[in-house]
């Protein structure tokens, strides 16, 4: 079970993780993109952090929608509309809810991933954030359906995202700015997949603390 307070704590932790890793994300993006992923995402999450105090009495749907709106308004790069859509679609699923069961969390997770696919007109295997998010969602959903509780299911999910990030090193980019590099994108891990992993790790860290 996750409540509004936990969601706010997860978003706070994700913002701090992105801030602390922004130079690494930017370095990854310098190698195969336009070198702004870390800076852009940190700017976006900073504006989210500034709004956290106003979220306290809101339902989870409203919180996630506000996060999405803030990201799309302030990030400035592709990760803005992509993560913005992800949070807004997850928010739609959680409308009016102050707590989420594990099944409802899975449903929101799915809506977020489908949102990224829709906005980016993208699929797995194109060296994008989806190469972390899709296996992460499948692992979580599989865990919950198989009777696992929230934290073990999310541990599986983070591990799957980690493997997904590693997988991006082995494939050629066919979406996003890295696609211009063609085979020169090989050997580099995708910055978007990496930031997706960080957000999931932040969620796991918060829930483990209880």
């Amino acid at each position, binding site marked *: 079970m996750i409540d509004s307070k936990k969601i706010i704590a997860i978003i706070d932790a994700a913002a701090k993780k992105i801030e602390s890793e922004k130079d690494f994300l930017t370095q990854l993006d310098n190698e195969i993109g336009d070198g702004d992923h870390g800076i*852009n995402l940190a700017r976006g999450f900073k504006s989210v952090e500034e709004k956290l105090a106003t979220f306290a009495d809101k339902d989870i749907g409203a919180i996630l929608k506000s996060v999405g709106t803030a990201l*799309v*308004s302030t*990030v*400035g*790069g*592709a990760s*803005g*509309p992509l993560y913005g859509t992800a949070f807004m679609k997850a928010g739609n699923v959680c409308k009016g809810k102050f707590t989420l069961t594990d099944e409802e969390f899975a449903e929101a997770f799915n809506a977020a991933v489908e949102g990224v696919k829709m*906005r980016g007109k993208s699929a797995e295997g194109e060296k994008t954030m989806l190469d972390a998010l899709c296996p992460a969602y499948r692992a979580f959903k599989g865990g919950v359906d198989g009777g696992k509780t929230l934290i073990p299911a999310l541990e599986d999910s983070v591990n799957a995202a980690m493997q997904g990030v590693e997988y991006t090193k082995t494939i050629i980019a066919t979406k996003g700015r890295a696609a211009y590099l063609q085979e020169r994108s090989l050997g580099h891990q995708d910055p978007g997949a990496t930031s997706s992993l960080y957000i999931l790790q932040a969620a796991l860290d918060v829930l483990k603390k209880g």
Partner: protein
Amino acid sequence: MVGIVIVSHSQKLAEGVMEVAQMTAANVPIAAAGGLENGELGTSYDKIKNAVESIYTDDGVIVLADIGSAVMTTEMVLEDIELDNVKLVDCPLVEGAVVAAVDSVGGRTLNEIINKLENEM
């Protein structure tokens, strides 16, 4: 007249494309939405929304965008905005802007211009 909005990661590029379009069609309703609020490279949801609203009439508005987030952010603005007849068109940015500007001043409708940009360029 049909309005035109130029969306780019760069304020200079958006304004430059607007200049070139105005060179051939001085009176065209056109607005540039380039860069972030502070002028840095990137695309701004608010700038795009404000640009569309600033030139919108019932004749409609065509939005032309450069790459990546410019396209995706424009899509989000168009999903949210409560105006009919605003369309994002996929075509070469500079040529598309010039053709759209000339045809707008020449009295072509929104759909006629979109059809030309999508099929003849």
